[in-house]
C-alpha cells in the first residue's frame, strides 16, 4: 500500500501556541519500499511515524494510506516500538504475544498457529515460544515485537529504532535478518533510525530530516545497492560520507 502525506504539520499542543514539531511534510512511499527516516535525536522521527500509525492526528495536512485518510491505528499498519519492555505483554509467553493479534481478530486455531509459527520462524524464535518476556534478552524482545507484527501480515511495517538499545553485534545480526524478512514478505517498511550505517544497510531510500522544531524532510538519498550491503563498495562509502556531513549540519544546528 502506498503512503501519502501532504503538507503535514504537527504540534503536540494542537497548534494553539508553540512551534510545530513537524512543518509542511510531503512524503510518498510506494508499495513495497524499504524506506528509512534518518535524523538527529529529537527532530520528530517518532512523531512522523506515529502520524502514519494513526496514534496522533496531523494538526494540518493529511495522511493517506492506500488512498484513504488515516483516522486512527489499524491492523494494516504494524508497529515495532523502540522501547524493549513497554510494548510487550509481559504476562503472555512469546507465543502468547505473537498470537495476540490473531486471537483478537478471531483467526481460526489452525491459521493462528500456522501464522504465528511462520512469524516465529522468520525471527528465529521457534525455540523460545514458552518463555515470558522477562526471560528474554533485549534482542529477543525486539524479535518478539517483530514476530507479533509479522503474524498479522500488515501491509505496512513501521519500526521506530527497534535495535537502538542493542549492542553492535546483535544489531548487525538483526539488520541482516530484517532484510531477509522484508524480501520474503514483500511489504512496505518504514524504519526510523539515527544511525547512518544502519540506514545504509537497510534502506532502498533514505529521507534525511532536518533538525526541529518545524522539522521536515531535508534531502532524499537513493541507495542503488543490492542486499546484503557491501560496506566497502565505493557507492556505500560515498553515501556514508555525504549523509554524515548532511546530518552533522543538522546536529550542529541543535547544539548552537
Amino acid at each position: 500500500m502506498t503512503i501519502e502525506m501532504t503538507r503535514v504539520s504537527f504540534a503536540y499542543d494542537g497548534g494553539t501556541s508553540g512551534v510545530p514539531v513537524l512543518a509542511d511534510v510531503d512524503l510518498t512511499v510506494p508499495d513495497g519500499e524499504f524506506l528509512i527516516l534518518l535524523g538527529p535525536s529529537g527532530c520528530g522521527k517518532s512523531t512522523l511515524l506515529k502520524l502514519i500509525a494513526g496514534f496522533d492526528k496531523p494538526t494540518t495536512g493529511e495522511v493517506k494510506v492506500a488512498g484513504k485518510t488515516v483516522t486512527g491505528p489499524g491492523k494494516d499498519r504494524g508497529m515495532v516500538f523502540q522501547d524493549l519492555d513497554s510494548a510487550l505483554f509481559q504476562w503472555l509467553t512469546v507465543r502468547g504475544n505473537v498470537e495476540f493479534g490473531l486471537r483478537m481478530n478471531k483467526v481460526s486455531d489452525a491459521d493462528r498457529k500456522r501464522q504465528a509459527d511462520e512469524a516465529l520462524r522468520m525471527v528465529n524464535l521457534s525455540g523460545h515460544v514458552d518463555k515470558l518476556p522477562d526471560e528474554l534478552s533485549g534482542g529477543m524482545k525486539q524479535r518478539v515485537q517483530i514476530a507479533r507484527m509479522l503474524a498479522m501480515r500488515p501491509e505496512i511495517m513501521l519500526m521506530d529504532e527497534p535495535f537502538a538499545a542493542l549492542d553492535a553485534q546483535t544489531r548487525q545480526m538483526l539488520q541482516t535478518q530484517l532484510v531477509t524478512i522484508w524480501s520474503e514478505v514483500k511489504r512496505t517498511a518504514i524504519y526510523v533510525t539515527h544511525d547512518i550505517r544502519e540506514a545504509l544497510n537497510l534502506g532502498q531510500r533514505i529521507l534525511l530530516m532536518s533538525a526541529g522544531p518545524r522539522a521536515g524532510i531535508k534531502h532524499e538519498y537513493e541507495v542503488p545497492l543490492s542486499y546484503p550491503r557491501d560496506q566497502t563498495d565505493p557507492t556505500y562509502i560515498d553515501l556514508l560520507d555525504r549523509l554524515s556531513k548532511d546530518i552533522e549540519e543538522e546536529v550542529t544546528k541543535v547544539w548552537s
Partner: protein
Amino acid sequence: MVVDTTESTPPKKTPFGRWIAGFWISFLSVVFGLIVWEIAARYFIDPFFLPPVSAIVAGAIELIERGLLFQHIAISLFRILTGFILGSLVAIPLGLIIGSYMPVRQIFDPYIHFLRFIPALALTTLFLVWFGVGEVSKILLVMYSTGFIVVINTATGVVTTHKNKKLAAETLGASAWQIFWFVTVPAAVPSMYVGMRLALAGSFLVIVAVEMLAAESGLGYLIWTSKLYFRIDWMFVGIFLLGFFGLLTDYAWKVIGRRWLRRYVRETANY
C-alpha cells in the same frame, strides 16, 4: 541469568534446599527471641507487665479449656475475610472503571479522595448506629477500609498501564473492549494484588478496633476484656494470635500470588 559463584561450587542447592535453609534461620531466630523473652520476663521484668512465654502458653491452654479461644479466632477471621472479599469484589470493578473511564472517574473522585482520609475507625460508632451492633456493621467497616485501598490501587494500575501496550494492541486490531479486557486488566493485576495485600493487613487493624468498641466476641474483644480481668497473659494470647493469623493470611496471599498469578504479578509476590 546472574552468575553466582557461590552457587557454582558443589554441592548445588535445589530451590527447596535453599528454602529449607532459609526456613531454619528464621525458625532459630524466633526460638532465640522467645528464649530471650522467657528469661527477661522471669528474672528481670515484672511479669505483670510482661509475662513469660510459658505463662502465656498456660493462659492459652486455659482459654482453650474454657472453650472460647477458637470461637474468638473463628469470628474474627470470618469478619476479616468476609469484609475483605466483599470489599475487593466491589472495589476491583469500580477501580477498573474509574481508572479507564474519565466521566466515571470525575463522578467518584471527589468522594474517594475525601473519604480516603477518614479512617474506618472514625466511622465505627456511626456504622454501629446505622447498621446495629451485629455482624453487618463490622463487615461493612472492613469492606470500607479494604475498598478504598483496593479501588485506589486498581485505578492506579489502570492509569499507569503503559500507553505503548494499548497502542500495540490497537495496531494488532484489538477493539476498545478487547484492549480493556486483555491489556488493561492483566496489566493492572500487580497493583490490585499489592492493594489487596495492604487491605488484608488493614482489615486486621479495623476489626480489632471494632471488636474492642462493640462486640461480645473476637480477638479484639478478648484483648479488651482481658484488661478488665487483669489477665495480661490472655491479652498476650490475643495479641500473639493476631500477629500469627496476620502472618498466615499474608503468607497465603503470597502463595496465591506465586502459584496462580505468577506471570501477572512477577516479583511483586517475592517479599
